[in-house]
């Protein structure tokens, strides 16, 4: 039995209103979906990942995650080029439910426009955003 994570929105991440997070490190960023998103979907059964080397653009879909009752586009919080897809999540999608900000990351990208991060929310802003949902 997989254990669902408890609700949290780590301070060191930045958030997009489509319930995606970004961890920016230099000119790269790791992306994933938030606790709120995985909770709304339920246990994930499939991750349709992008190809490595693909270009993704902020606000557009770069992949899909599925539970048995819903399918959701994964929206890029930032633009860039995919440098790595999380193979663990491809094989065991429920990893996202267990650890959405750690082992359950979805892709790593090389940023094409670092200034885009200025529009993202910090943890406090995102938390009050989800409270209104």
């Amino acid at each position, binding site marked *: *039995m*997989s254990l669902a994570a408890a609700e949290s929105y780590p301070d060191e991440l930045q958030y997009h209103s489509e319930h995606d997070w970004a961890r920016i490190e230099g000119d790269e960023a790791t992306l994933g979906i938030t606790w709120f998103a995985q909770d709304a979907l*339920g*246990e994930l*059964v*499939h991750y349709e990942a992008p190809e490595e080397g693909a270009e993704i653009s902020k606000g557009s879909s770069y992949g899909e995650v599925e*539970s*048995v*009752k819903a399918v959701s586009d994964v929206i890029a919080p930032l633009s860039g080029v995919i440098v790595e897809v999380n193979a663990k999540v491809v094989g065991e999608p*429920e990893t996202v439910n267990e650890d959405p900000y750690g082992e359950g990351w979805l892709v790593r990208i090389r940023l094409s426009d670092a200034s885009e991060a200025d529009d993202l929310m910090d943890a406090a802003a995102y938390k009050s955003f989800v409270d209104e949902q």
Partner: protein
Amino acid sequence: MKLIYERSQEGRRASSLPPNDLPVPEIPEELRRDRPPRLPELAEPELVRHFTKISTRTFGIDTGFYPLGSCTMKHNPRVNERVVNLPGFRDLHPLQEEEGSQGALELMWRLQEILAEVAGLPAVSLQPAAGSQGELTGLMLMRAYFADRGEAETRRKIVIPDTAHGTNPASVTMGGYEVTPVKTDPRGNIDVEDLRTKVDEGTAGLMLTNPSTLGLFDESIEQITRIFHEAGALMYYDGANLNAVCGISRPGDMGFDIVHFNLHKTFSQPHGGGGPGGGPIAVRERLEPFLPVPAIVRDGEEAFRLDYDRPKTIGKVRGFCGPFGVFVRSYAYIRAYGPGLREMSEVAVLNANYMLARLKDAYELPFDRLCMHEFVLSARGLKREHGITALDVAKRLMDYDFHPPTIYFPLVVPEALMIEPTETEAKETLDEFVDAMLEIARDAAERPELLKEAPHNRPVGRVDEVKAAKRAVVRYLFEDHPDLSKEPASGRELEVQKGA
């Protein structure tokens, strides 16, 4: 219960075929099958028992009340099964010459005439195999119509309300169009102000179910028609809910240009565990040239023929003339009512309103109006107060030997329960169901575990859909077949099922 493959014994069989003493021609080696398909091997007694058991583990309208919203689960008259099995229909080859199939052609022609009258539109094609295919055919007609007017490139958008069945947007994409969603207003009608901002010279048409999936007749229908026709766009009527308005209000008179019928809903083709259906369409004169071929026409008083000479036709959407056996049943059904089809719809609406009146204090009613042939309740209150969901209510209804209603649809209503009794049920049945629903609402407060653990009397309890999706065991694998009972259950709460 064992799978039929698990009952098999090598060398056993049910079939006997006439002996062949003629030489069998040689098949070239690379085309010849060496490894036989592992089909079941049973003698007839075991074969009959297996499928009898399969049937007893299936709940149909014949078993009990089946108020599956939007699916119109009405009684299927037995006389229809008798007539569809007449050899003149059952054993008729579809490529038989026209003079050898006059009875079939006449029946189809008569059905076309009837459907035209019910729709209030002059031209009919019976060909589409089901409602979804009727939708797609309608979109193909729009495309051909606008291409003929030189507007195919500019008119790209189809407007669909947020209450629509999923088939509507899926059909739009398959038809090469784009979806423009429109909102629902607080009375459950299309939000006309939102609509005005979305219809322009780039709009090809509207797809609308009326009454809607909320079971409500759109009070703004005349305004909506005006908006589309003034923009030069077409109106498509999804006939999923036509059972509410036969002889009461006709789609053609509402302003629709294309209509599909669901013969398996309104006109009682048995649902067959998922199908077959029938999805004929009726259209206005200006769309007739584009209808699928062949058209079924009458030459003079007595002779009927297939007409392929339609230069502007979209082509064919299915083999031959469509699902003929479905036409036989639906034709027989309609002939039983005649003009009394109106009473059929009236009673469907009466039954639904009666149940609604008895249930609306125990469950939330998102739109407090009279309903048409079905209504949508919400279990939102039960969820908030007792943690009981629409799914729990549905599962508990099984303990009373009722098939649950459609749940979690339409999407605009949280914890939706969509109930469609149909006209054929007795008042006592409606009362028993209502009493069960009321008791469930009380139990939600007093004995919630009873609902959470339901159903209690079925061959299986709630099933692990996550495991099904992850393991994707979609056929029997013989000696390699996994024993899923030895694998751990998935972590989350077992998931929801939807209808429609």
